[in-house]
């Protein structure tokens, strides 16, 4: 300003683009994948400032041979492992059936979590049954890990007479107080600060239950993400903040969400929150990281941010066609593999599993899903009904129906 105004070069805008678009071969070769077992495991009371490296590293337990290696191995018993495998397979079979039902016109919409099953299942198993979960639409695995009846979930998807949500919500926007599964919102991000509020409430009451929340990497751009991290940091809320980086938000890749030059786990560092980056397709790593975070929370050490590094193998939803914006079949090339395959391989490597038992389990799971599907459909589907009474449309807007809704209900003749 003291000199005459200098001549300045023109500026230009940087707009991130994914490395490949439809038509080119998918190529993940530039993705840095550290070997399993190499990430260190700090004590749960480690200050955030002393573990910033873990926000850039990748916690992995299962190696390419299916062995559990390194300090993060949660050392789970066979029963737990098989339960995890079964739950993941159930999620996948459930997704398949529901997607088919949507294609058949039995409901309006569906969303799969293919490739991400380890996240919800392992995390659901790693916390207490009484802890409160604030999911997005891609954590159906939490309900399944908690043995919530498939029929109940399906009734929600069909909006039928058995739907506890009375046909009000779009498919997959489950809610179950009994399952400790918070009502899923259509508005991205809102559950994240709510989970922190719930956790603060638990702390205020001297309760021992903690909260866990999930958000997609795309939705981290919403303000609620920032508010959640701010409140969680300030009041040391007993909450696990999970961030599922599946690399896509409908058609836009993680670079548009701010993942081009840093990791999403790094977001937590700015708030002084211990942050882990975890292989989301590794059942054991996910389980271990979640347990670690839960321990911290239970010891009044505050929140943990966990980035679950994974890949959305399927379409965003039944309304989406990923071939329009990324190479086809991209998920099959994900270098971190398939979570179900990897856990099965581990069980086999442990010598407690076989292809035969795998097939048997697959049959069992398919059967269970089919039985549930039939039962749910017998309670109705969106195209044919039956539904709950239309009168329910006017209920639960308020605890008690005010005069104007009463009047509208009468006008509607229900």
């Amino acid at each position, binding site marked *: 300003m003291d000199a005459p105004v200098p001549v300045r070069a023109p500026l230009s805008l940087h707009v991130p683009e994914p490395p490949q678009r439809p038509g080119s071969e998918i190529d993940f070769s530039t993705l840095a994948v550290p070997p399993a077992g190499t990430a260190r495991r700090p004590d749960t009371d480690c200050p955030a400032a002393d573990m910033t490296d873990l926000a850039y590293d990748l916690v992995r337990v299962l190696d390419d041979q299916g062995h559990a290696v390194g300090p993060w191995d949660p050392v789970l018993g066979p029963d737990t492992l098989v339960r995890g495998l079964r739950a993941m397979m159930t999620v996948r079979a459930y997704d398949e059936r529901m997607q088919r039902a949507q294609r058949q016109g039995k409901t309006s919409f569906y969303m799969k979590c293919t490739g991400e099953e380890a996240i919800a299942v392992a995390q659901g198993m790693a916390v207490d049954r009484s802890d409160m979960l604030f999911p997005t639409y891609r954590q159906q695995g939490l309900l399944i890990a908690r043995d919530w009846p498939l029929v109940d979930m399906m009734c929600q998807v069909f909006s039928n007479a058995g*739907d506890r949500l009375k046909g009000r919500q779009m498919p997959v926007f489950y809610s179950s*107080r009994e399952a400790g599964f918070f*009502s899923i919102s259509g508005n991205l991000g809102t559950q994240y600060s709510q989970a922190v*509020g719930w956790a*603060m*409430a638990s702390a*205020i*009451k001297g309760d021992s239950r903690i909260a866990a929340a999930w958000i997609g990497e795309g939705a981290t751009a919403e303000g609620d993400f920032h508010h959640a991290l*701010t409140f969680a940091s300030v009041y040391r809320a007993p909450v696990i903040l999970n961030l599922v980086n599946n690399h896509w938000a409908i058609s836009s890749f993680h670079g548009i969400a701010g993942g081009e030059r840093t990791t999403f786990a790094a977001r937590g560092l700015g708030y002084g929150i211990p942050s882990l980056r975890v292989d989301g397709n590794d059942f054991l790593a996910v389980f271990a990281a979640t347990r670690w975070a839960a321990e911290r929370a239970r010891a009044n050490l505050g929140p943990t941010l966990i980035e679950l590094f994974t890949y959305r193998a399927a379409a965003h939803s039944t309304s989406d066609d990923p071939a329009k914006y990324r190479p086809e079949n991209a998920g099959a090339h994900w270098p971190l593999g398939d979570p179900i395959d990897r856990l099965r391989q581990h069980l086999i490597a442990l010598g407690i599993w076989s292809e035969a038992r795998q097939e048997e389990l697959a049959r069992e799971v398919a059967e269970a899903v089919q039985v549930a599907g039939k039962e749910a459909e017998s309670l109705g589907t969106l195209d044919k009904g039956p539904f709950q009474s239309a009168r329910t449309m006017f209920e639960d807007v308020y605890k008690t129906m005010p005069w*104007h809704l009463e009047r509208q209900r009468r006008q509607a003749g229900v």
Partner: protein
Amino acid sequence: MTMVQALNAAMDVMLTRSGDVVVLGEDVGYFGGVFRCTDGLQRKHGRDRVFDTPITEAGIMGIAVGMAAYGLRPVAEMQFADYIYPACDQLISEAARLRYRSGGEFTAPVTVRAPYGGGIFGGQTHSQSPEAIFTHVAGLKTVIPSTPYDAKGLLISAIEDDDPVMFFEPKRLYNGPFEGYHDRPVVPWAKHPASEVPDGHYAIPLGKAATVRSGTAVTILAYGTMVHVALAAARDAQVDAEILDLRTLVPVDIEAIEASVRKTGRCVIVHEATRTGGFGAELSALVQEHCFHHLEAPIERVTGWDTPYPHAFEWEYFPGPARIAEALRRVMEE
């Protein structure tokens, strides 16, 4: 007692009665709020019951909804109603709809307190009356008191209510009633009968209007600050107006409105908010629907102009007694 003290008393009573009540917001803790409404509550009830928050209205609402889902009854202060907009998503998409979308399993009994309205030279960001944005949202209730007595009883009802309640506090009335004559000396609450506020717990039911003046010539529908201004206008214009203080906007007391307008045949609606799409529009539509055949003159709306609230022209903006009196005369001429 003043309205500030009455609101403070309401929170004190509720904090004492139930361990589930918590008070949160910007500067509400140690300091006791920029308008002093929460003065002393942290000292008395503890730092984890009454606490300062980071400056993020959206964050405060998200936190409050989560706390309410847990089972608490959060009382969240928005420092000024003008700053409530960042919280719209958590209010409209979340608090208002949680009961509905969860089939009744999760609820959000949050009380959102916010000083609203002009008259303190606050300019456009410390003077707004945004109630109409929330009265349009199914699932929210909206309450606005006009006296210390009502403020305490209504705030207690709001906190006890199982649904989310928007509780707008007329900041121009915090320390004294206000007839709209900004050039006359401020009258303290002490001289007003409704500043007699009983100790302890009492509740004024939501959804019930109060007839603050009986009359036969015309019905005035008002709430908050404008109740006092309407009273002054009726007095000054010497019109035998019946004045209803709505107190609750949603659900509104349609019976009281209908009964009064059927009797008087005329109706003037007043609010400080901007006119287009204000709550006055809904009131006008309701009156017209419920009392069409009894109306002898067009329903008049006397409101803030459709502009932001200007700092220097505050009193040109404010719908004062003169403008109301004019409207009264107009409807009486028909």
